[in-house]
C-alpha cells in the first residue's frame, strides 16, 4: 500500500495551510479524491464521471444542489482535468518547499545569538546604541519591505533571507567586519540599493568606506549571485535583463510549438496529458468514436430478461446460467457495467473491456456481504405508489375524519393534543426538520 496518499490536510503543516482549500476544491464531493474524468452537470457542479453516473442512476438529481439532472446532459470539464494534472505535477515539490525547515531555523538562531553576545561585549558606550535602536529598526523594516518588492530571483532570496537579515542586524550593531565580510558581500551585491549607507554613518564610520567600495565593485563586475538561470532555455542571464529575456524565450517557444516541427511545449503549459498519450496501449478515443461507443441505459420495464442475459454475455460479464438471479439483479449488474463503460470513455487513460469486467466483479464481491440498502428517495416510486393507492388513501382519511368527529362529540377534548402527538411518533415519514450549517465543514 502506498504510504504517500495525497490529502488536503497535508498542507496544514506547511507555511501556507490555506492551500488545503485549494486542494479540497480539486476533489470530487462524492468520492473526496481528485477528479478523475471530471464532468459538469447542467447546474454547474463537477464530479468524477463514474461518481456522477452512479449517483444519477440511483437518484436523478445533482448531489450538491438537488436540481434534477440526466446522465446524457453531462459535459466534460476539461479545464479541471488540466488543473489537476498541473497541480499534481508540482504538488510534491510544493509540499517539500513549504514544509517548515527546523534545521535552518535553529542554525540561524544560533548564529544571531552569537552575534548578540558579541554585540553586548563590544557595545560598551551603551547609551548611543540604545538611543539609536528604534531608528535602525524602523529603517530596517522599511528596507525589508523594499527588498520584497522586486519579483526577480525570489526563490534564491527566500532561502537565504533569514540568514541575511540576522547577519545585517548584527553587522550594524557591531563592528565585526572580518567575520561578517562574506555575508555582507552577498547582501550588498544582491540588493544594489543605496539607502543602506546612512545607517552606517551613525554607528559605523569605519566600515562605511569599505562597504561603499565593495558595492561599487559589485555593480561593475556582477558575480555569480547576479546571474539568473532562465527557466526556459537554462542559460544564465543577467538579473536586470532576465525579464526581457524570458519574454523572448516564451515568444520563441510558442512559435516553435505552432510550427509543423511538433516540438513539445517546453514548460508543459498544456499539461502532461497530450504528451503522455503516445505511450499508452490504446490512444484516447476521438469524440465521434466516443459517441458511437457509448451504451444507452435502456429501460428496465421495456427490456426482457433474456435480452439482459444476452447483453451481459456479449460484454463478457458473468451471470448465473441456471437462472437463479432475478431480473433486478441482472439489470443492476448491467447498469453498473454501463456506468463503468461510459465513465471509462471520459477517462484520459481508458481501460480495456476485460479490465472493466474485472472491476465490476471486484466491486460486486466487495458488496456481497452487505445487502444493498433500500432506496428511500426515488421520486417516481412515491408517485406510482400514491397513484396506485390514492383512492384507498382517500377513503381511509374520510373514515378517520368521520371517527374523529364522532369521538369529539362523545368525549371532551381533554388530553387530545398529547394523544395526537404520541400517535404520530412511530411514523417517521415526515422528515422535514430544517437544519442549519449543513454545508459548512
Amino acid at each position, binding site marked *: *500500500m502506498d*504510504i*504517500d*496518499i495525497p*490529502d*488536503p*490536510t*497535508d498542507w*496544514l503543516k506547511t507555511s501556507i495551510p490555506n492551500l*488545503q482549500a485549494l486542494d479540497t476544491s480539486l476533489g470530487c*464531493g*462524492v*468520492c*473526496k*479524491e481528485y477528479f478523475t474524468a471530471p464532468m459538469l452537470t447542467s447546474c454547474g457542479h463537477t464530479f468524477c464521471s463514474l*461518481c456522477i453516473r*452512479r*449517483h444519477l442512476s*440511483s*437518484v436523478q438529481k445533482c*448531489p*450538491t444542489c*438537488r436540481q434534477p439532472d440526466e446522465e446524457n446532459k453531462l459535459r466534460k470539464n476539461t479545464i479541471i482535468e488540466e488543473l489537476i494534472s498541473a497541480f499534481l505535477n508540482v504538488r510534491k515539490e510544493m509540499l517539500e518547499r513549504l514544509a517548515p525547515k527546523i534545521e535552518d531555523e535553529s542554525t540561524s538562531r544560533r548564529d544571531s545569538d552569537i552575534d548578540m553576545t558579541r554585540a553586548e561585549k563590544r557595545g560598551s558606550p551603551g547609551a548611543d546604541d540604545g538611543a539609536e535602536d528604534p531608528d535602525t529598526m524602523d529603517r530596517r523594516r522599511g528596507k525589508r519591505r523594499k527588498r520584497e518588492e522586486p519579483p526577480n530571483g525570489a526563490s534564491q532570496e527566500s532561502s537565504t533571507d533569514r540568514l541575511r537579515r540576522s547577519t545585517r542586524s548584527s553587522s550594524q550593531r557591531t563592528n565585526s567586519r572580518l567575520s561578517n565580510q562574506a555575508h555582507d558581500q552577498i547582501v550588498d551585491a544582491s540588493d544594489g540599493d543605496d539607502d543602506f549607507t546612512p545607517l552606517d554613518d551613525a554607528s559605523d564610520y569605519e566600515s562605511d568606506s569599505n562597504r561603499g567600495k565593495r558595492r561599487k565593485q559589485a555593480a561593475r563586475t556582477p558575480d555569480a549571485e547576479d546571474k539568473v538561470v532562465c527557466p526556459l532555455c537554462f542559460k544564465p542571464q543577467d538579473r536586470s535583463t532576465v525579464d526581457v529575456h524570458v519574454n523572448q524565450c516564451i515568444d520563441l517557444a510558442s512559435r516553435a510549438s505552432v510550427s509543423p516541427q511538433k516540438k513539445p511545449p517546453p514548460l508543459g503549459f498544456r499539461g502532461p496529458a497530450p504528451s503522455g498519450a503516445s505511450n499508452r496501449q490504446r490512444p484516447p478515443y476521438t469524440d465521434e468514436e466516443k459517441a458511437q461507443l457509448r451504451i444507452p441505459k435502456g429501460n428496465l420495464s421495456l427490456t426482457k430478461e433474456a435480452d439482459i442475459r444476452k447483453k451481459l454475455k456479449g460484454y463478457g460479464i458473468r451471470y448465473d446460467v441456471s437462472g437463479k438471479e432475478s431480473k433486478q439483479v441482472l439489470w443492476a449488474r448491467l447498469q453498473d457495467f454501463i456506468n463503468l463503460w461510459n465513465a471509462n470513455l471520459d477517462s484520459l487513460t481508458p481501460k480495456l473491456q476485460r479490465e472493466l469486467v474485472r472491476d465490476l466483479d*471486484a*466491486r460486486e*464481491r*466487495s*458488496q456481497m456481504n*452487505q*445487502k*444493498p*440498502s433500500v*432506496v*428511500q*428517495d426515488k421520486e417516481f416510486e412515491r408517485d406510482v405508489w400514491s397513484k396506485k393507492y390514492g383512492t384507498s388513501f382517500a377513503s381511509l382519511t374520510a373514515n378517520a375524519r368521520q371517527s374523529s368527529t364522532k369521538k369529539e362529540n362523545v368525549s371532551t377534548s381533554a388530553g387530545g*393534543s*398529547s394523544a395526537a*402527538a*404520541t400517535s*404520530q*411518533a412511530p411514523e*417517521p415519514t*415526515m*422528515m*422535514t*426538520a*430544517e*437544519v*442549519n*450549517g*449543513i*454545508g*459548512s*465543514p
Partner: protein
Amino acid sequence: MSASAATAPTAPAGGSTTNVTKRLQKELMKLVMSPSPGISAFPDDPSNMLKWTGTINGPEGTYFEGKTFKLSFTFPADYPLQPPTVIFKTPMFHPNVDMAGRICLDILKDKWSAVYDISSILLSLQSLLGEPNNKSPLNGQAAQLWDEDPKEYRRLLEKRHQEED
C-alpha cells in the same frame, strides 16, 4: 501519510480497497488532521471501516450544554450514495430522537446527498440539539416540554442522561 498508515485497515480479501473504505479513510484523515470543535468520530474496529462511533458536545446555551453524546454510525455498502444509519447511544431526551436513539432528521433520510460526510452529519445533529423540529416529533413529551416546561425538560433529560452506563 503516517497517520493514516497506522490506522488504515487492511484491504478486504479479493483485491483493491473498495470505494466505501477509501472514502471513509479520507473522512477519517480529515477528522483527525483538521478536527472541528465539539465533534469527533472514529472507526470502532480498524478492520471494519463500516462501523464508527461519533461524539457530539452539547452546544452552549442549550439544555445539552456540558454533556457529551455518543452515536453509532453504520455505513451501507453503497455509501455515500445512501446515508449511514445513525443512532444515539447515549440515552437522549429530545423531540426528534426516540427512546431507542433513532433520529428524525431529513438529511439522514430523503434529503441525504452524497456530498455530505460524517462531519456534516455531526454538525447537523449538533444544531438539531439546539433547534429541534417540534412539528414532527418522535418524542411527543419532549416536544411539548421543550417550550412549555423547561424545568421539567431539564429534569427528564438529566434522568435519561444518568441511565448511561
